[in-house]
């Protein structure tokens, strides 16, 4: 039977939808809240904010993280900022404009009601964070500073130097630790979720592995929240942290949760190009750099002169030339593809000719070195540390890299997956960003889901479970799941093959980047679809995981994650192949305008694709959630 992707989005005027929905949802009496146990997997912005907020309400919360401390979740690495429709700058911003920009920026592949709610609560997020002590940048009068960011024509981005994600996460982490101190949250660090447990069709708990002792444990709860981030590491090289993975979301998918739009991946335009084959990850340089930096390549592809010796007349500022209205501030997908085109046509710069220049020469002349230093010094230092070149003297070299995944577990308006009681928050869900996320919107969404959406929506579900104790961990469903996970661990340890996990991860990443990266076509995707399963079989037979399962064993941690990446990679290719259009981060070479821009097909593809697991080795079934656009009219995006 096909899954019903019922968004449960409220009807009526969109401005009142969230208020109305909040009123319509059932509440849980304060005395009853402590009878409900909620399991939160992941401690990034969504997880920490959600866990803290739910514990404040009186629920019993358990938080699981594979890090040694919840503060290390990858939200910490977000640099640029967080959007909010405060209109502090009096420059024409409003909730409606943020909503409009997000739907349009997402190339009309997001659910309007969700995006409107996101824009609405964005305002409260800033207030909440300020109250927690997040040291946002201030003006001399002591008021909050804003900047324009990533393609927005208004200044609505709040920031804390180049470390906004760090400060927002520390705010949520501190709120979480306060609840730990109060005993309302029990924290499980160094604990990785390896399965979701369901009973009678509802999520009733999880199975975890303690990464230090290897013990496989069962935890039961009335609801399970997956706040486990995105899957960019399927590409091996990405800006994600080394341990970011899809495992929690994928295991949920295998237990019945639909996985939506996996092919929507964001390739961030401003990352440091790879320097050699041993590169373990790519480093992002905040998009805010595009506010003052100018992107160019030499007009002559054979120009080998250092940047400063190439005269103005022989430089091609290709974004300014092709997109005069937005120039260097075009959205990420457009900037990335433009850079790819330059490198593909031989105009790349640097020793491997794999980057484009991001030049601050003009900004330093216009603003003075002091102001440029004030704005970007920590980024410049970071660049200098990695490349040994100072952006004050020579232009940065940048190239796009996988950075964020808009796809993820399908959720309804309440953030519930297709498995009752199982929720997905933040980047782990298929998100409010459609086919392309705007800069400074990931932090906004993670915190919106955690602080301001889940505390309401989870109550509506739990109210129906009043009087029902959580399924005990000695129930057969838990025993079975534990046995399955134990069996998996032992299986990996017994393969004793010849190649390391990283070897196979790198091979998979190469396939994904070549055929399902910044631009895709039918032939490439079909090739990937035949090669990935073959490589996966080889991996399963030949991977080498040494040591035991009773202690820290980092190869063992990785091997299961890479196995899940194989299955995900295949689904990404299938999703990309079926979506016969170009939209946002998904660019099919067959579907482009004469100028090489993405061509959407709204008649056939204005839907979210929710893929349904049909068993190992079986292709997933496609289910569709139609998307309707009542408030933001479908138009071809133009940033010219």
């Amino acid at each position: 039977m096909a899954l019903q992707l019922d968004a449960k989005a409220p009807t009526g005027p969109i401005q009142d939808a969230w208020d109305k929905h909040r009123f319509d949802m059932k509440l849980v009496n304060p005395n009853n809240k402590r009878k409900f146990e909620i399991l939160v997997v992941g401690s990034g912005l969504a997880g920490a904010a959600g866990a803290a907020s739910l514990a404040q309400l009186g629920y019993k919360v358990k938080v699981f993280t594979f890090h040694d401390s919840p503060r290390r979740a990858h939200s910490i690495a977000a640099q640029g900022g967080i959007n909010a429709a405060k209109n502090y700058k009096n420059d024409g911003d409003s909730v409606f404009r943020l909503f409009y920009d997000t739907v349009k920026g997402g190339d009309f592949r997001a659910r309007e009601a969700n995006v409107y709610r996101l824009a609405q609560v964005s305002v409260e997020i800033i207030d909440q964070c300020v109250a927690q002590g997040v040291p946002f940048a201030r003006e001399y009068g002591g008021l909050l500073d804003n900047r324009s960011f990533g393609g927005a024509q208004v200044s609505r981005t709040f920031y804390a130097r180049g470390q906004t994600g760090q400060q927002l996460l520390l705010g949520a982490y501190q709120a979480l630790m306060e609840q730990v101190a109060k005993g309302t949250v029990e924290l499980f660090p160094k604990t990785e979720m390896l399965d979701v447990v369901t009973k009678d069709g509802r999520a009733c708990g999880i199975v975890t592995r303690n990464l230090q002792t290897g013990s496989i444990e069962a935890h039961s709860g009335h609801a399970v929240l997956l706040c486990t981030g995105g899957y960019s590491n399927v590409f091996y090289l990405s800006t994600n942290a080394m341990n970011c993975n899809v495992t929690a979301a994928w295991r949920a998918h295998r237990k019945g949760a639909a996985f939506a739009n996996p092919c929507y991946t964001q390739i961030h335009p401003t990352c440091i190009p790879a320097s050699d084959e041993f590169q373990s990850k790519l480093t992002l340089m905040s998009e805010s750099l595009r506010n003052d930096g100018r992107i160019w390549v030499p007009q002559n592809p054979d120009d080998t002169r250092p940047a400063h010796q190439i005269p103005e007349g022989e430089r091609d500022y290709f974004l300014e030339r092709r997109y005069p209205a937005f120039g260097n501030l075009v959205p990420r997908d457009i900037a990335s593809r433009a850079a790819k085109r330059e490198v593909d046509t031989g105009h790349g710069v640097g020793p491997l000719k794999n980057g484009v220049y991001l030049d601050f020469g003009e900004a330093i002349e216009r603003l003075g070195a002091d102001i440029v230093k004030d704005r970007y010094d920590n980024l410049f230092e970071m660049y200098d540390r990695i490349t040994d070149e100072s952006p004050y003297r020579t232009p940065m070299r940048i190239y796009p890299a996988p950075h964020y995944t808009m796809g993820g577990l399908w959720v309804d308006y309440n953030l519930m997956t297709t498995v009752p009681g199982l929720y997905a928050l933040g980047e782990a869900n298929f998100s409010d960003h459609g086919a392309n996320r705007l800069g400074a919107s990931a932090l906004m969404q993670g915190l919106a889901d955690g602080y301001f959406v889940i505390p309401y929506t989870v109550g509506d579900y739990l109210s129906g479970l009043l009087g029902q104790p959580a399924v005990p961990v000695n129930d057969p469903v838990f025993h079975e799941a534990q046995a399955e996970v134990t069996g998996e661990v032992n299986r990996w340890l017994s393969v004793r093959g010849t190649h390391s996990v990283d070897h196979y991860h790198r091979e998979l990443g190469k396939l994904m980047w070549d055929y399902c990266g910044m631009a895709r076509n039918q032939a490439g995707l079909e090739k990937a679809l035949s090669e990935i399963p073959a490589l996966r079989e080889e991996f399963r037979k030949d991977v080498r995981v040494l040591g035991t399962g009773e202690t820290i064993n980092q190869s063992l941690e990785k091997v299961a994650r890479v196995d899940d990446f194989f299955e995900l990679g295949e689904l990404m290719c299938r999703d990309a192949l079926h979506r016969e259009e170009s939209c946002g981060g998904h660019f099919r070479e067959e579907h482009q305008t004469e100028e090489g821009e993405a061509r959407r097909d709204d008649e056939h593809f204005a839907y979210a694709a929710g893929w349904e697991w049909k068993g190992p080795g079986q292709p997933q079934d496609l289910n569709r959630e139609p998307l309707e656009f009542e408030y933001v009219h479908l138009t071809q995006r133009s940033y010219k």
Partner: protein
Amino acid sequence: MRVTLKVWRQEGPTTAGRFDTHQLDDISAEMSFLEMLDVLNERLITAGEEPVAFDSDCREGICGTCGLMINGRAHGPAKATATCQLHMRKFRDGDEIVIEPWRAAAFPVVRDLVVDRAPLDAVIEAGGYISADTGGAPDGNLIPVPKAVADAAMDAAACIGCGACVAACPNGAGQLFTSAKLQHLNLLPQGQAQRLDRTVDMVETMEAFFGSCTNYGECQEACPKEISIDFIAYMNRDYVKAKMRNRKLVGQRFP
């Protein structure tokens, strides 16, 4: 580049450790230090030996997961640089490099180069927060925060919680970490209501886990975010004040 590594290996918290020596002959100067260790691990796996366990995650110097003693220095020879941001170009061809886990009584070794830094979380749990339950926060611009204050709070808040300050300190003291979080919150107007209690609670929890500060200043040198030991002085001032002041009068400007 050619380097000789002396790497600390220890199977578990209670087993004895040892140094293993490895020679790597073809290391690129562009590699990061941890990529060099990745290469070592690939070689070990190929040779059928268990890879060296070490922690790392973001590899861009912000998550605080990584941290190694490199030639006796926390995070190695480069100033203001976390281990993951250290590159091999900071070493010379033919160098011998000694790699150890964080050295501090508060951080027991779990395996090889991985230590347990739970006491850092315990210090935050003791009071490293401003109590502001979700919802009901006033407008973010209601209380202006002078730029100098916001900047100083941010300087302190930049701490990544890696524990290098503790590892670098001859006493294994946790003052720099604790004072950074305290002053991040104590400097801001939003943090005033809990300032005195927060200070006492965090300082006393710190004392339960870590050694004492005797002003060596090694912590500041090792800190990848260059957190200043001035914050320790502020913390000491707040601690004395917190022990003396009548809590009922702190709402008054001129008590």
